[in-house]
């Protein structure tokens, strides 16, 4: 089954990290991505640019509303995702627990609705 691991974290806290720690943080993500790759379960993954670069579009009553900013203004933001293909929810949960995002934020596990 395919699952999306959605990483929610406080991006301000990450940006405020000293350079060495930020590098260690990125290295952890690179190692994690490599582990998923080696296990043959990684379908896709990406890091998202900061919410300062986000634009939200919504059409209401035929009119296009454009909002400068993210969809939800919460403390923790969607900062990246991994799309993985594993046997079941237990496997997806154990990969989610290994994701660095689970330590500095939270990882939401969502099964993919195959189209």
């Amino acid at each position, binding site marked *: *089954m395919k*699952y999306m691991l959605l990483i929610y974290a406080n991006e301000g806290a990450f940006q405020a990290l000293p350079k060495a720690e930020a590098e260690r943080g990125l290295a952890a993500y690179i190692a994690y991505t490599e582990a998923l790759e080696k296990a043959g379960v990684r379908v896709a993954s990406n890091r998202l640019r900061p919410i300062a670069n986000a634009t939200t579009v919504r059409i209401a009553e035929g009119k296009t509303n454009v909002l400068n900013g993210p969809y939800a203004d919460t403390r923790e933001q969607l900062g990246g995702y991994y799309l993985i293909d594993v*046997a*079941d*929810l*237990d496997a*997806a*949960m154990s990969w989610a627990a290994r994701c660095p995002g689970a330590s500095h934020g939270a990882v939401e*596990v969502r*099964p993919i609705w*195959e189209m």
Partner: protein
Amino acid sequence: MVRDGDRHACAAAERTARQGYGKLVAFLAHRTRDVAAAEDALSEAFAAALADWPSQGVPDRPEAWLLTVARRKAADGARRRRRGEEAASHLRLLAEELAEGDAEPSEAQIPDHRLALIFACAHPAIDERIRAPLMLQAVLGFDAATIASAFLVPPAAMAQRLVRAKTKIREAGIPFRVPERSEMLDRLEPVLEAIYAAFSEGWADPAGTEARRRNLADEAIWLGRLVVSLLPDEPEALGLLALMLFAEARRDARRNACGDYVPLADQDLRLWDAPLIGEAETMLLRASRMDVVGRYQLEAAVQSAHVVGWRAGRADWAAIACLYDALMALTDSPVVAINRAIAVAEAEGAAAGLVLLDAAGQDARLREYQPYWASRAELLRRVGDRGGADEAYQLAVGLEADPAIRRFLQQRRDTL
């Protein structure tokens, strides 16, 4: 007039339903993870059995017959409900299953996936409140209304939560497997809770008038033994088994020859089952050697204290009240609060018990809970408040579903 063949077929279907329901659901759903579809297919198979067996005769292996029909119904259902790729993968799983076992497995050969089903129902990704009800439905075939009444939840809400939980098992890919030893402790607690809930439900029908329920206490004890055999070093699993065995040992003493309810204080202690009590004591002792106290061990210890009291001719209510104190600290359950109030009433007098019962009564869940009102009536009687006792008994009578207990409560009310 019901013909003999019909009656025989109905009895055979009923017997198979009781003994094999969970096994058949677990087998039908363990690959597809579709518990609702397995239940639907099985209920269609039971309907087919009731149509076929009276004229064709009951098959030699009723479980295998039901399984064969249920699998065909499941495949039909999958074709009806699903389209395209999804249907194809579902049907492929069903086909693999058919190829894996014989087309007509004998009863002994139907692999027992019940434990895996139980752990799927108690998975951490399932809402905590629905784990036990889900197990009762999937493993033991309870309907949503019965489960709702056992869990003090409105029936419509319970039915909806059950549907959502089954959908989550299917759509989120919750596996049917027995957890590794390292995960077992976290995963065990909700399992024990559900087993105890099943036992309590069976315990509520001492007259054995409802076939499903009569067997339920036995099923729960069976599940309890299974868990203990799988996890011999888990004290709470032993504690739960001890608790259930103590209660089961008193089953026959709860009704007199006329079928009337007999409260614990008036039971004929010769009717208690001594070998079961002995087994329960052994389990509790084994658990206590592991030095990890828990809810079930404490409740079993209460039962043990009653047994000791029986042998000594006088219950040690102060000790029992102490055990309930420890239980309150662990569970904060309103039902434990009632029992604690009763123990304190016995140890220190009705007035002291009433103070605790009043405090417990702040919990809105107790407003429609018969034992709360019956306990309250009894304590009000003892302090001489006949008007209050009469009112509380009326509420207790109005809330009770079991006719024998209703009769008992009415008699108590009449003697005010």
